[in-house]
């Protein structure tokens, strides 16, 4: 079983996918704030290289779910500098697998378009977007130079999968459900290598709009949504 460090374990995403991943890998959880159910985790502050590196020691892979969205200083120090620390430590320790995460950075630009795969990022100057964009460039650079297989999952909405019909609503165009994301993370940990050592993947559970395609995630990772979740949004006709 792979030993995996999960940074940002107490954030808005990780606690929702950890239960489904624990049978797949040996997870070590780390964050600066307590885990929601009080479970013991390691304290790792992304701003401090020594803390990041020490937590990564002995790991086979690292998953970085950390982020600070609004703060003019912390956003740079957690999202950008923190990413540098992860990749630098991976290079130093010989860790060859990193799963990075962040926003898709461009979704609304393409609301009038279809069959959208990888499109140029357009983060703008907001702290969340720009600091994560910079983190992607850092990951891509370190991945190329140190042969660190880096999978970057990009999001534009996450949540609990539906379990009953939803009436009177269309589904969001770029949303992934926890069940699908935990599966994608397991695939990312298992895959031997990705082209150019670094790939970004749209994380989407529903594609019936024919907007954001999963072609790349299917082709490289073997990712497929667990169900055709669009069927929960059917109108009675």
């Amino acid at each position, binding site marked *: 079983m792979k030993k995996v460090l999960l940074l940002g374990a107490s954030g808005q995403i990780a606690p929702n996918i950890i239960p489904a991943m624990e049978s797949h890998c040996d997870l070590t959880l780390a964050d600066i704030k307590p885990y929601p159910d009080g479970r013991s985790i390691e304290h790792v502050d992304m701003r401090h290289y020594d803390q990041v590196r020490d937590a990564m020691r002995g790991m086979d892979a690292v998953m970085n779910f950390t982020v600070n969205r609004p703060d003019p200083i912390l956003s740079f120090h957690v999202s*950008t500098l923190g990413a540098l620390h992860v990749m630098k430590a991976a*290079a130093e320790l010989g860790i060859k697998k990193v799963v990075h995460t962040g926003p898709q950075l461009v979704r609304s630009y393409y609301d009038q378009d279809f069959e959208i795969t990888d499109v140029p990022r357009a*983060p*703008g100057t907001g702290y969340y977007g*720009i600091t994560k*964009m*910079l983190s992607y460039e850092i990951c891509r650079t370190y991945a*190329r*130079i140190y042969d660190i297989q880096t999978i970057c999952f990009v999001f534009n909405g996450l949540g609990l999968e539906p379990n009953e019909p939803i009436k009177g609503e269309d589904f969001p165009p770029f949303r992934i459900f926890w069940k699908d994301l935990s599966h994608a993370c397991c695939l990312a940990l298992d895959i031997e290598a990705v082209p150019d050592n670094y790939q970004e993947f749209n994380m989407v559970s529903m594609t019936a709009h024919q907007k954001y395609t999963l072609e790349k995630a299917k082709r490289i990772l073997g990712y497929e949504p667990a169900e055709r979740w669009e069927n929960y949004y059917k109108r009675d006709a």
Partner: protein
Amino acid sequence: MNVLITGAESRLGQAIARELAPGNRLRLWGTGESELDENITYFKGDMRDPDIAWQAVQNMQAIIHTGEPPPNLPEDDLACEQKLLDLATRGTHVLFKAGIEAGIKRFVYGSTLQIFEAYPDDVYISEMWRPMPSTDKFQLTRYLGEMTAREFARDFPVAVTVLRLGKLIAEENASPKNSDLMWVDYRDAARAFRLSLNRDAQSELKWNKRFALHHICADIQNPKYLVGKISGFQLRGFQPQHNFEAIWRGGGA
């Protein structure tokens, strides 16, 4: 024009100040007063402090952010890297944001051509190629500063110009022993900054017209790094004057 020049203590900053001094009012950030000149004022402080950046941009009409690393960087390698990263990313963001809020319309950032060093020497590098920075702290952070600067042209009606500079050197100090395809003379680099201030693109509707990117190095025989060869990427009026003929005529590297 009232122009703020950052990194003014660097050799590049000094060359830009000399180039711009005639006919402009300059505010030099980072250097102490040297010669008494009524058109030059001096400024010091940490760019990452929004209050200081706000003071620096007052009454300015353009910002030249040289991207040059400051003096007195930490000796510790990690601390040095962390500071360079913070200056290039957050520092650039704080400075440009202050400039936007002060109504400045023209911004120029000094990046580096070294982000193409990884490519083999048998290709012609133009602005069309994808950067491949190394993890060298000076190179990678300079590139991240460029990416930070670019986003301001996307979001605001301002002209942002990025100059990817070759390796800076004075032609008279160049030696065939260490000839470099990426050389650019300080004076030519300074001229490129001056010409960039002429760009009047802030009213363009498309962000990629408000943003401009130029490679700046000497125009040598058989160049690897092309200057002004791609339509739409020429810096109007720029022609390098220092082209190291004495070096390259002898065979060079």
